[in-house]
């Protein structure tokens, strides 16, 4: 039983869950959104800083949640820096696939950074825990809401 659970709760996740990176509210953030999971009460604020070319120069977050949602948010903030809006959305699409499918997708619409993908792979264990997929994707839904200029997003 613990082996299966260790697939989900890998060291990296436990570490990021306990000590989330980029856990702050940057002064120069120019996009933000609040994400909420009404099922469990998890709440995340995602802050993005985009430059004039539409490249994400900073990504940070604040909030409360389970180990999966905090670790996912923390890992996301580490992978988005330097990406364009389009690349960030494509990465979410791929990440969502990773959380819900055993096999890799046929082709990505946009070329993705293999290093970023590798970093996110650690969360793929949620695919064996379907009710937890929303925890893993809350930060990403909130990030795309921020890009869309939406203030609030709920996973219901």
């Amino acid at each position, binding site marked *: 039983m613990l082996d299966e659970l260790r697939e*989900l709760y890998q060291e990296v996740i436990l570490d990021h869950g306990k000590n989330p990176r980029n856990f702050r509210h940057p002064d120069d953030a120019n996009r933000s959104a609040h994400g909420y999971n009404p099922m469990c009460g998890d709440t995340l604020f995602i802050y993005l800083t985009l430059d004039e070319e539409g490249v994400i120069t900073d990504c940070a977050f604040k909030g409360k949640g*389970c*180990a*999966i949602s905090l670790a996912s948010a923390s890992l996301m903030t580490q992978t988005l820096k330097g990406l364009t809006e389009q690349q960030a959305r494509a990465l979410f699409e791929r990440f969502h696939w990773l959380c819900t499918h055993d096999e890799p997708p046929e082709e990505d619409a946009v070329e993705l950074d293999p290093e970023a993908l590798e970093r996110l792979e650690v969360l793929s264990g949620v695919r064996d*825990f379907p009710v937890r997929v929303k925890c893993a994707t809350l930060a990403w839904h909130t990030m795309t809401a921020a890009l869309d200029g939406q203030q609030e997003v709920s996973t219901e």
Partner: protein
Amino acid sequence: MTTMTEAIRSPGANSVKALDLEQVRADFPVLRREVYGRPLVYLDTAASAQKPRQVIDAMTSIMEESYANVHRGVHRLSQESTDLFEGARERAARLLNAESSDEIVFTRGATEAINLVAFCCGEGLLQAGDEVIITALEHHSNIVPWQMLRDRKGIVLKVVPMLDDGSLDLEAYRKLLSERTRMVATTHISNSLGTITPVKKMIAEAKAQGDILVLVDGCQAVPHCQVDVRDLGADFYTFSAHKLYGPSGIGVLYGRKELLNSLPPYQGGGEMISSVTMEKSSFKAAPHRFEAGTPAIVEAAGLAAAIDYVQTLDYDAIQAHEQGLLSYATTQLSQIDGLRIFGTAPEKAAIVSFTLESAHPHDIGTILDRAGVAVRAGHHCAQPVMDRFEVAATVRASFGLYNTEAEVDALVAALHKVKELFG
């Protein structure tokens, strides 16, 4: 691990008939199943209870042998179905010690019952500026309908706060009662903390203040203790069958007969009318006035069997058994480092809400699930209760008449696995 017979041990066990726990567990087919290769440990009865064979058989039997629409046909099957349906109403009336079965309205569940009371009282009895008192312990179903009524009709909503142990602040309640108060809507037992509220006393105080109606949400109470609506003095009392080991989709609203008959109808349709022309309709008396459309006939047969089931087991035995489990679980859980129990009122039902310092309730829920232990992790549809304790969520282990001390041990063992993972 303790054995099942040891699990029957409970305060006052000498004076009351003890549950034959092995027989009880054998009555519930689902308790034989495994989850992820482990025996199911079902500790989520406060969310919904499992069903005994007797309920399943009653529902199958009406469908196989007697099913037809009720109150309509002159044919044999319709008469048999009507007898079963109205028999369920009589059983519910006896269960709550109502004066007559005309005081029992069938609804989809307690949520619909509270909506019915809020809507119909809002149309008939309550005026803008009238005050309705609810409590800080309420389930969303006893908050939101009143907020909707406030927004629609301009009633004023007041909330009885709770103390740190999860019991109601009765002094504050007394101060809230005034000549403007028209309604008090309170839970009998908190679904999130297990607190048993002093409803009899609260009703007496409301009645001493004036012409105040009291609605009691008895969802968590009816499965665990004998309820006597006349002794309590309640004007309305409601519960859902699915928490009483019966089917989902049907609930009971008790209302005093003259009170029900003074209210306008809830929904319009067949069954609730005495005559209809294209110009106007006239309505039946309660309870049928509140039961538009074909009711939950099969579910009513299931509810009747569920009522028979708990009454045959005997409420004193059920309560003694569950109080024993509560005290055992509280003691065992309290020994876990970093575990905090929410709701420590002296009068409690067998519900233990807790958090662990090192892990979020949702993560705990997932790990317990893999150990076969089903608990609720979340806000339990009582977000104001969570806010009061400044937590987003808790883990809730809730016990029913079929649970054992061995299952408490399984919960504790699984929590140690959580600590192994999360430190």
